């Protein structure tokens, strides 16, 4: 059999803790070709690329480059075979200089010592090629995210590569920086390098890529030339038809009482002039692609990221009172997609995880935690939320994702917050668990709370939301009412992108 030139990934499968992340995915790319890899949040793009980059190991499947099997046992092995990876989460070494960061795995040496002249010259060449204006001797920790993203790109270009993976390379870049990056990608293509380009900005696909592969739920949806697509057809393939499963009791129409009012919230390069209100009993969907600012908005509201200007007012004993993000966070429940990283305490029991934010209310007269009250709180929440566990003493790490997420929710129910910020609370859960989580959101709203819900799938929002705020590039660009259809939502994402292309 003649070995085909180029990259072949065949039948790649990967499971995490029993949950399928990739199911028999195929991907091929020829030399000199830029392949766009698209998919909604959680579709498996990053998992696939992490396998190609040696960051994680596949369970099954074949990886070939020019017909030869690739050794992808570690990032080091992948890199040695010409696979460069521009990570979405920047891999910067803040205490080292720009030059050291770029060349760290192949520093030029003379007689065992680093040849700093050559190091600087080579780095400066790369920086010039990328149009960066900072100095090669700058400490990377002193640079902003946009510059760091360019360093990430420079590092990938610093060695001869056969394949360069760009995982959302433009999220912190300015327009001119972006254009220079596209120029570099054209250059790579003309040198015969294979470019794999992950993005959520569909217009970038048309600007840089030749072919496009779309993934959904860990599976390949389609692959073909970019010219056969429109932005709308790509959005459609990414988001799928969707399927409704499980009834959710209709949320009661919201009362007219505003409980949260946000005005002109701004954070440089991330959020601009975001204003909106949430009423008691209301579930508001934040709709936009990843990178539209939806997660950033939630983080800024509770003070996880700093804000530059804007005001937040919260209902407090009958009046709207101006509060700081950290004050808001005290009456807010924040549930993120990143359960393992931010939500649960693995190694501790279900009971300990549930009672954590309310421990102060469980103290007995000696100032110690009243174990029997803690137990009854835990049992009460386990029953109310329908958590499937062998008992309150079970280690939370051994529960399924859906049950872990219920506990993250349940924790907050004990302390009765007024505002719930839910950032993809159903990510990675199966259909049944998704329904139960959404049902909880409705229950919260019915109890008078206000909910801001972020989800990547329009169906999820449509099942529970009273209205939708449409976000794009850090702004609220529109609003749709309850009657909006799935097509309306999808169209708003793609129309916006079409506008950008036409500009």
């Amino acid at each position, binding site marked *: 059999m003649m070995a085909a030139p180029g990259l072949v990934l065949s039948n790649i499968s990967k499971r995490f803790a029993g949950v399928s992340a990739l199911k028999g995915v195929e991907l091929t790319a020829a030399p000199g070709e830029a392949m766009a890899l698209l998919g909604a949040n959680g579709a498996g793009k990053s998992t696939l690329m992490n396998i190609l980059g*040696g*960051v994680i190991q596949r369970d099954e499947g074949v990886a070939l480059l020019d017909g030869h099997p690739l050794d992808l046992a*570690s*990032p*080091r092995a*992948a*890199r*040695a075979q010409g696979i460069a*990876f521009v*990570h979405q989460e920047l*891999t*910067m*070494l*803040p*205490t*080292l200089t720009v030059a*050291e960061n770029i060349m*760290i*795995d192949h*520093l030029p*040496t003379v007689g*065992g*010592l*680093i040849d*700093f002249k050559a190091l600087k010259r080579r780095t400066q060449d790369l920086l010039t090629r990328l149009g960066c204006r900072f100095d090669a001797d700058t400490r990377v*920790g002193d640079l902003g995210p946009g510059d760091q993203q360019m360093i990430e790109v420079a*590092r990938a270009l610093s060695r001869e590569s056969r394949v360069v993976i760009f995982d959302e390379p433009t999220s912190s870049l300015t327009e001119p920086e972006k254009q220079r990056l596209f120029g570099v990608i054209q250059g790579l293509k003309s040198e015969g390098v294979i470019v794999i380009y992950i993005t959520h900005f569909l217009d970038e696909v048309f600007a840089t890529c030749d072919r496009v592969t779309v993934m959904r739920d860990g599976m390949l949806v389609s692959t073909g030339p970019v010219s056969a697509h429109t932005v709308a057809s790509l959005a459609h393939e990414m988001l799928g038809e969707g399927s409704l499963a499980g009834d959710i009791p209709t949320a009661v129409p919201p009362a007219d009482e505003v409980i949260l009012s946000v005005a002109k919230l701004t954070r440089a390069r991330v959020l601009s002039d975001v204003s909106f209100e949430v009423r008691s009993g209301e579930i508001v969907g934040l709709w936009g692609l990843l990178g539209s600012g939806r997660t950033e908005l939630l983080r800024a509201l509770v003070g996880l990221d700093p*804000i*530059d*200007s804007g005001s937040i007012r919260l209902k407090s004993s009958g009046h709207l009172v101006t509060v700081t993000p950290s004050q808001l966070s005290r009456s807010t429940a924040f549930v993120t997609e990143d359960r393992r990283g931010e939500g649960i305490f693995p190694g501790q029991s279900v009971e300990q995880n549930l009672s954590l934010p309310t421990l102060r209310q469980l103290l007995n007269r000696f100032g110690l935690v009243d174990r029997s009250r803690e137990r009854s709180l835990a049992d009460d929440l386990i029953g109310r939320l329908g958590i499937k566990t062998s008992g309150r003493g079970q280690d939370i790490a051994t529960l399924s994702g859906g049950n872990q997420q219920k506990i993250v929710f349940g924790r907050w129910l004990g302390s009765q917050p007024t505002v719930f910020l839910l950032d993809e609370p159903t990510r990675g859960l199966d259909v049944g668990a998704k329904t139960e989580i959404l049902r909880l959101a409705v229950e919260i709203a019915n109890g008078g709370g206000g909910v801001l819900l972020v989800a990547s799938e329009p169906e999820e929002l449509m099942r529970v939301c009273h209205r939708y705020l449409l976000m794009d590039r850090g702004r609220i660009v529109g609003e749709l009412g309850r009657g909006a259809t799935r097509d309306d939502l999808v169209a708003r994402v793609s129309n916006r992108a079409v506008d950008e292309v036409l500009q």
Partner: protein
Amino acid sequence: MTSASSSEIWSVKRLRSLIGQIGFPIMLLLLFIFFSAATPGFLSIANLAALAHALAPVAIIASGLAMVVMAGNLDISVGSIAFLSVSIGWSLLGLGLPVPLVALVIVVSGGVLGAVNAFIVVVLRINSLITTLGTMIAFRGLALELSGTNSHTLPDGVRELGNQAIGPIFVDSIIALLVVVAIHVLHQRTAYGRQLAAVGNSALIASKIGLPVGRVIFVAFVISGCLAGLGGIFATLQVGALTAFLGRGLEFNAVAVIVVGGISLFGGAGNVLSGILLGAVTFEMIRNGLNHLDANPYAYRPISGLLIFMAMYADSFRSRGHRRK
């Protein structure tokens, strides 16, 4: 939220980082002037040479430890490595081996013991503090078994080596300086040294970039072990005997030197040359100066404790900036 308040915060930050960077050298200078003025004996060539002599072993050991700390790990077994490797050398000396060969064996033994630490940390993936807490106890036990609990006076020919000097400067001071410079060059100017700093920034990111994280940490522990052996030789020579107390507390003195020298326990940041010299001189100068003042002999300990807290505090707000992003 206004621009005025943010620039104000910025200048407070600047001031803090400035104090963090030059606060210790200034304090050291003031102390030096104070001791020189307050006591007649402090500012003499003989006393300063004695000071440099006394700090040599801990400076050598702290240099090796600095490599481990730069990589974001800790090695508190260095005192016990010094004791055990010197005990091994003592046994060989008894068999009539020549002194230079014994010295070499001691250094190599230190390296092997460092490799044992490295194996547990890198291959078995045990936290380095726990690992070296264990080997600190175990190595000391083996050394006591080997050398007995009695102290052994060194043979006259060997003991004299501890007092060798070129002019007023003791040879071990010179060797300590050479070691510190060599480690500084290794850290600052070799590919290995830069990768060490990269691993210290974040082992996870370093491995994503494709650096040989395990190998880098392994080598750091071996260097630390070798220099613990070398430092142990000079510590023994200074006492003139192999005692059961050799190296006891040395690990903590070495950690204190590193911290006060501004080498971050968070890993990845610090300057070996200025850091080790600054740290070692600070502690020895306070000890020496207090002696000359006829101060309460116990005063040295609380003062060093205070110094370590201050240095850690400076380090924590120096490191906070780039790590919280």
